């Protein structure tokens, strides 16, 4: 990193911003309006009682057990967004090609669009809403904010969920290794350089 003037510059900017940026502005970007909407979904949708063939399951999401009835076809992604109103997790391609729907299942990142909700009874599911709070951001959320690791923000929650998982994975120290392990998260705005800078900042200042 230090041999690369551009990366070095990016990191300096990142660190300077981290020293001076407060957490409150991050809330809108990182968690969206979903936190305030959680629990506000209409009951008929939330419990799926009127759906023919719906099956009962209990999903454990962000540390809370959520008893539900879901159509077996419901992906984990649609269940989180439509049934539990946790809309921080985004639907991009819906085919495992973009990474916008990345969540953690038992601590590992997965594409929520390519797995069924009924397959995850008893699993520990973490979404962007469970990562930090507006007043106490996860360090990765703070780093994305400080390093300007997004533009439109649509891919951001998936990027952050991947980035947090990466911290516990087999990843070499350099930017190339980070880019390889982040290749499953597409950003059409092209914020990649700043995303890598944010991740490297957290890795170097845990």
């Amino acid at each position, binding site marked *: 990193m230090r041999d690369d003037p551009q990366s070095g510059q990016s990191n300096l900017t990142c660190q300077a911003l981290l020293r001076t940026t407060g957490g409150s502005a991050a809330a809108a970007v990182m968690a969206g309006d979903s936190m305030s909407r959680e629990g506000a979904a209409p009951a008929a949708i939330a419990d799926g009682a009127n759906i023919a*063939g719906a*099956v009962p399951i209990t999903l454990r999401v962000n540390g809370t057990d959520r008893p539900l009835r879901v*159509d*077996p*076809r419901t*992906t984990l992604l649609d269940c989180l967004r439509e049934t539990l109103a946790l809309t921080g997790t985004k639907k991009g391609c*819906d*085919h*495992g090609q973009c*990474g916008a729907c*990345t969540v953690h299942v038992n601590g*590992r*990142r*997965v*594409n929520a*669009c*390519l*797995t*069924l909700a*009924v*397959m995850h009874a008893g699993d520990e599911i973490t979404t962007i809403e469970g990562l930090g709070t507006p007043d106490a951001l996860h360090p990765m959320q703070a780093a994305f904010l400080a390093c300007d690791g997004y533009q439109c923000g649509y891919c951001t929650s998936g990027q952050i969920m*991947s980035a947090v*998982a*990466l911290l516990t*994975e*087999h990843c070499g120290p350099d930017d190339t290794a980070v*880019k*390889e*392990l*982040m*290749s*499953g*998260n597409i950003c059409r705005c092209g914020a990649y350089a700043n995303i890598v800078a944010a991740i490297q900042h957290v890795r170097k200042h845990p």
Partner: protein
Amino acid sequence: MHPFAFLRPADTAAAVASAAQANTAQQGADMRFVAGGTTLLDLMKLNVETPARVIDINRLPLNQIEVTPDGGLKIGATVRNTDLAHHPTVQRDYAVLSQALLAGASAQLRNMATTAGNLLQRTRCVYFRDTAMPCNKREPGTGCPAITGTNRTLAVLGTSAHCIATHPSDMCVAMAALEATIHVQGPQGTRTIPVGDFHLLPGSTPHRETVLEPGDLITHVTLPPPVVGSRQVYLKLRDRASYEFALASAAVVLTVAGGHVTRVRVALGGVGTKPWRSPEAEAALVGQPAHQAHFRTAAEVALRDAKPQSENAFKIELATRCLTHALQLATA
């Protein structure tokens, strides 16, 4: 997505008994096992797969990696690609497998995708994935528009007048070079299938991709004991550096003594209708000096019967260079 009943059998025998009632284990199956779901759910959303029953095998005890009594390795059906790629024994003794797995998909998908699922990965041919188009693999007898259409990424080896779809797996290419054995539990009991016999050439029945029959459940894969002193390389060439299917790939397990090749296994990916082991290239290499000129000659032998389509003739030279370079890397 078509409606389906979701089943979670208590044990492997119950899973097999449920699936034994299926109409087929091939395209058009009305029952499917689901493990990682990364291929199946993708295709169910496209209505390419329309099972009436989906049988979840994730809770069955099929997720272990163990050394076998003969010194080989037993890999459970639901072992995730990530766990297999980073297993210390795989990294040390079967490096080509670890490299192939890590060259495939994304970190998220590798956390989901399983060993058995990867053996059953389906082609990325755009006509197969689009139900508005004819496709002999998806709907037998409707024709193959790829032969006169978009075929840049499709196969040059093992094709037929009915199908030129590429087998997309990286893992299977490494398994072919490692001479893996697939273990199946079916309604009649258990049996083993050499990986080279597991996938079928399209011929006139491209909807039949494997030798599996209704009720057959892949329980595990075994690898023979590691080849002492072998050098192993998986080289993958693609349109972008990461998260893309192979245009051409090569798996090499090579042993050199006294400057000569004493043993070699070669398989190609991205160019065949099935994971493409090349005994012809192996025969051309054994006993020869481990030198680039011989590597190139052997690679040309591997592609000797390649048949180009309108957009993919470049793959023949690309695969030839890919294998040549992989052999060089294995001797570097």
